[in-house]
């Protein structure tokens, strides 16, 4: 499904700020893989997801989805293949536009945008049903500006928008990190539901080791731009937070540098 081969990304090359964010990362995801990604601050987790989404060009290697090489494709052309939810709840929606207008934009991901109406009454009905399934009462607020929704509501909406047109890949980058624990749990539960219902292939970055173990069928740990651990199946189910921390300490020779990892 997703294939990264020797992907390399260097920020500010040739300057004192040069930073190798991804150092020859290779990983292959099978159809339906739900992979959780952990690692310390600056390990390259977001950079990896952004490389897949095409936020910036990479400096080496290749990325393919479903056999299609997308390495050179601009971000907006990859969008039909990729659904995304960001860490910042502000980032995934257009705050000044109505909830239904946002949904209508998402419904046209990958389609030609012409001079037909941006939103039809038939679509409104569909959105109402979909929003009702979230169980947040948003179906009655379709003409509310998204900017007036709470962070959790916005993340739930972004998730819904990311999967409205079924993507080949779902990229979740710490999408519950900005939420309070109760809301985070709700959004996480929705993510699980969407992924299993749609049999989606997903990458989910989280700073919470417990969540990383509890969700998905595979776990990747990153450090300094490399993947240092990749476990799946039964082996993953047996993981413990303590074992992960110890592994990290041995592999990197330092304590786990993500201050948020032990919260949760």
């Amino acid at each position: 499904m997703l294939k990264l081969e020797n992907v390399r990304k260097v920020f500010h090359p040739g300057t004192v700020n040069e930073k190798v964010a991804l150092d020859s990362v290779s990983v292959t995801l099978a159809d339906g893989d739900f992979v959780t990604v952990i690692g310390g601050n600056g390990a390259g987790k977001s950079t990896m997801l952004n490389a897949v989404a095409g936020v910036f060009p990479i400096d080496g290697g290749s990325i393919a989805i479903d056999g299609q090489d997308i390495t050179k494709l601009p971000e907006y052309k990859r969008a039909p293949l990729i659904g995304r939810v960001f860490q910042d709840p502000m980032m995934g929606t257009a705050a000044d536009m109505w909830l239904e207008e946002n949904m209508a934009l998402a419904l046209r991901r990958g389609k030609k945008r012409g001079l037909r109406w941006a939103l039809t009454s038939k679509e409104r009905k569909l959105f109402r049903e979909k929003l009702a399934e979230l169980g947040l009462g948003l179906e009655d607020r379709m003409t509310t500006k998204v900017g007036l929704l709470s962070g959790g509501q916005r993340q739930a909406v972004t998730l819904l928008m990311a999967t409205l047109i079924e993507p080949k890949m779902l990229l979740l980058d710490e999408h519950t990190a900005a939420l309070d624990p109760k809301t985070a749990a709700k959004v996480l539960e929705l993510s699980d539901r969407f992924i299993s219902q749609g049999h989606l292939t997903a990458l989910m970055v989280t700073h919470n080791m417990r969540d990383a173990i509890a969700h998905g069928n595979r776990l990747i740990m990153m450090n300094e731009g490399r993947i240092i651990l990749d476990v799946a199946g039964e082996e993953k189910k047996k993981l413990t937070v303590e074992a992960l921390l110890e592994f990290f300490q041995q592999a990197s020779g330092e304590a786990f540098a993500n201050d948020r990892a032990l919260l949760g």
Partner: protein
Amino acid sequence: MGILQAILVSMPGAVAQGLIWGIMAIGVYITFKVLDFADLTVDGSICTGMAVCAMLIAAGWNVWLAMLAALLAGMLTGLVTGLFHTLLGIPAILSGILTQLILWSMNLVIMGKANQPVNAMRVPLLVTRLHLTESILILIAFNLVLIGVLYWFFGTEFGSALRATGCNKNMARAQGINTNLHTVFALMLSNGSVALSGALLAQYQGSADINNGRGAIVIGLAAVIIGEAIVSKISRNFIVRLLGVALGAVIYYIVYQIVIGLRIPTDLLKMLSAIVVAIFLAVPYWKKKFAKPLRKEAPQNAET
């Protein structure tokens, strides 16, 4: 003639000018409010519209064709700014300033000299000072048609994607929207409108002058701000807002005429408009600054 009477007599002219600038202000609204792009091209493109229209009318072109040509020339100026920004990665403000400079030269090239008369003797003009009532009616029609077309356009898939581009580029790209294309298009649409208003202005004042566009952005912004202030309490509807912008320009010119009537030196007027615009732009910033810090999770019904 008393001051009051003089002011009253000048009102129809003020309304006509305000309506012309209303079209310009709607152009500014597209970039400044919808696209969230402070486009300084307009100081040049309004003059381009005047220059193209003046020269073509002098060459005996039909006035409608001359105005169409002005509109297309304006769109071209927007294209230049758009490509500076999207293709060459030049910051928004600087892109506009660069095009503005290019246009300063281009406008002189088009006109051949700094000032060109627009003569109503050669070709029947659409708007003139001599037929104020007809001119005002025609200008109202222009404003309404433009507002109608824009209302329709921003309700389409393409227009909606443009609004998303202005609102949140990250989101837009994640939803497969080519934000560069939409940015360029919005700049073309905006500067096309601005040049059209220039073409009308050249006819109305009977000349095109290289200095006419100077500070146009401030008048446009002032109209946008006045318009928002008037209608924001009444309706959030897009069509009402656009009407408000056109109305804002008319109010601006009525005030302008009163200031002239009161013999306040008009040289100071540009400064006054700039100060007014600065104050209005500062208000939302200061409001935000002193607003209570938001909690992470807003209450269930956060809207008021």
